[in-house]
């Protein structure tokens, strides 16, 4: 009899580790590595384990440079900059230090690497990941081959560096080894985020993320509010074009 009981309890116990091991496509997945909160509650709920995954490649697909991508990362960078340095590799334009300090971040934590060739930039990114003395790496690249992405992802897995890669929106169609891919589009007062890929259920509708610190958000709610300011000019034009019969 005791043998039977133990057998039963064993058979009852087996499904639970299995349940852990099986991931269903309609559930949010989980990742092993530590995550860092994004600082945006709307986004946290949509990401596995509720934050940016460390030690992996995160792809941000941008419509163009300067649409609020740094604002999106600002709370995370704020947390990282308290302890470690932040490396910007091959940024599209010159980073402005005054903007960085205006966000309350220490300027001495920034490192800007500008390589002449794409291969050099990839090499620098890999070296920064391997070295591990920077807490976060932001890497801009337009044309990357699949094997380079895999290599970077592999290099990121060996460290605790938060690694974002910024690529053009057109790359959303291409395959990528990154476990998390977000497409960013600007919108009034914030950002529209499309979750292209994540370890979790598919999400079709874009996610609206309000960014309070953008200058537009603080002054007016929407650009439509400006329209009436300039309404005088079109009004004069219509008056001149009236058919003479009506006058």
């Amino acid at each position, binding site marked *: 009899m005791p043998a039977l009981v133990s057998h039963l309890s064993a058979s009852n116990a087996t499904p639970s580790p299995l349940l852990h091991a099986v991931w269903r496509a309609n559930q949010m997945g989980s990742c092993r590595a530590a995550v860092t909160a994004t600082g945006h509650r709307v986004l946290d709920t949509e990401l596995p384990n509720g934050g940016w995954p460390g030690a992996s490649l995160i792809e941000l697909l941008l419509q163009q440079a300067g649409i*609020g991508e740094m*604002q999106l990362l600002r709370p995370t960078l704020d947390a990282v900059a308290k302890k470690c340095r932040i490396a910007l590799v091959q940024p599209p*334009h010159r980073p402005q*230090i005054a*903007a960085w300090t205006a966000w309350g971040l220490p300027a001495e934590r920034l490192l800007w*690497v500008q390589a002449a060739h794409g291969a050099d930039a990839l090499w*620098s990114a890999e070296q920064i990941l391997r070295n591990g003395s*920077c807490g976060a790496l932001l890497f801009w690249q337009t044309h990357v081959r699949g094997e380079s992405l895999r290599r970077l992802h592999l290099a990121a897995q060996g460290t605790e560096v938060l690694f974002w890669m910024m690529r053009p929106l057109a790359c959303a169609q291409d395959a990528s080894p990154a476990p998390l891919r977000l497409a960013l589009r600007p919108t009034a007062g914030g950002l529209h985020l499309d979750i292209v890929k994540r370890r979790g259920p598919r999400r079709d509708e874009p996610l609206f993320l309000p960014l309070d610190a953008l200058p*537009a958000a603080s002054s007016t709610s929407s650009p439509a509010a400006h329209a009436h300011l300039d309404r005088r*000019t079109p009004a004069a034009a219509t008056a001149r074009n009236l058919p003479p019969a009506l006058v």
Partner: protein
Amino acid sequence: MRTWIGVHLPQLPLETFRPRWSEPGLHVVVNRLHAVAVSAQAATAGVRIGMRRAGVQTLCPAAVLHEHDAAREQEALSEIALALLQYTPEVAFAEEASLLLDLTASLRAFGGRRALCRRVRASIEALGFTPHIGMAPTAQGAWLLARHPNRRRRVVRMESLARRLDALPWLLLPAAQSCQEWLDGIGCITFADLRRLPRAGLQRRSGKGVLDALDRAYGQALELFNWVQAPKTFSARLELPDRIEHAEAILFAARRLLLQMTGWLVAQQLAVTRFTLWLEHERGRCALAPTPVEIALADPAWREEHLVRLLKERLGRIALSAPVIAVRLEAARVSAMLPPTDSLFPDPGGTSADYHRLLELLTARLGDQSVLAPAPRADHRPEVCNGWMPAARVTRPAPAPRLERPFWMLETPLPLTVRDHRPFYGSPLQMVKGPERIECGWWDGRLVVRDYFIAQGNSAALYWIYRQRNNEEIDWFLHGLFA
């Protein structure tokens, strides 16, 4: 119980001319009469050690003959000794192109006997030589094991050493070679046979040397050595076996010099902060000054891997003006070696030494102007205020002003077209905030008279634009992007 390593270099005469990494070929080293060393290719062609010079030329007319150069061999041996000083301060020369290392005190630091043997072998191979390594509790025993051509050469305990030595032929002992004839005559072949002979008789017939060497090998007599002393300053030169036309190919030779420098640094308890690699060029019609490759380190270093990586990246960027025939390495500035760290648990983000190493590596490959850190200046003009400096030189940046600025600044402002009296960039721009007037710079000739606005396009992206009065016209420029 002591641990000794004996390093024997069987191919030393040949490898001083042709390091082991150089291309295989028919090479023979001859002294006045006979062949002393033979490359593997020449050996297959039938050339043997001890052949006469004329015989070699008849058998293998294509063979390149090198004159035996004892001074150069001794130089090579001291280079190896210098490189091996990184494992122990007790290195001594021994007879017949070999070295003896007392490693008793270094076993734990390098992870045991086997790992240490591997490292010694790797270092010597990187220098371009083929070592035979023997390990034993006595120096003479280690030397004999290294000298014997069989492959099992590592012994830890004294009893097993005695057993192993008993089976070896006594002919290995240089002191006993004078009495080869009569020892052969009485049927004495191994060390065991030699030890069975009466000591008094042996000493009378062969001199004191044989008995002394025997006693030293079996641990029954004291061994005394003149240890190798490291020179006060470091400068090593290496002639290359071939002309080298690509800078990257120099790395092999440079690595050999770096290994020597590592040994020297460890022996002197120093760390290098700046070193120079001089590339000496072939003298063509006019003499060319050697090209210096100077490498400065932010953090004193003595580890070979880091120095090799730095040099590799630097050499990758250099275009040679003429073929290189020799390289010379100089340690320009050294400082005392610091203990690695004083904290018990490592920092999560790596130490500052790690960061400096990263900066050095990036700077070595990309150049000074590509690895930048903020160095803001107190100025109202945004392009002047936003200063960046080579990261290796910035110590502590001045505080930057806290202003509403875009994160991305265009290098040169982009002129905007005007449609319907409004600046146009992809779509008509709406003013969101402004103006902020910046009028500044009359004193250095870069006068700026601008009204800055924050503007928004149809796609809701925010731009930093400015208006500039140019005589009667008003020009609009895009200067930044809010990220």
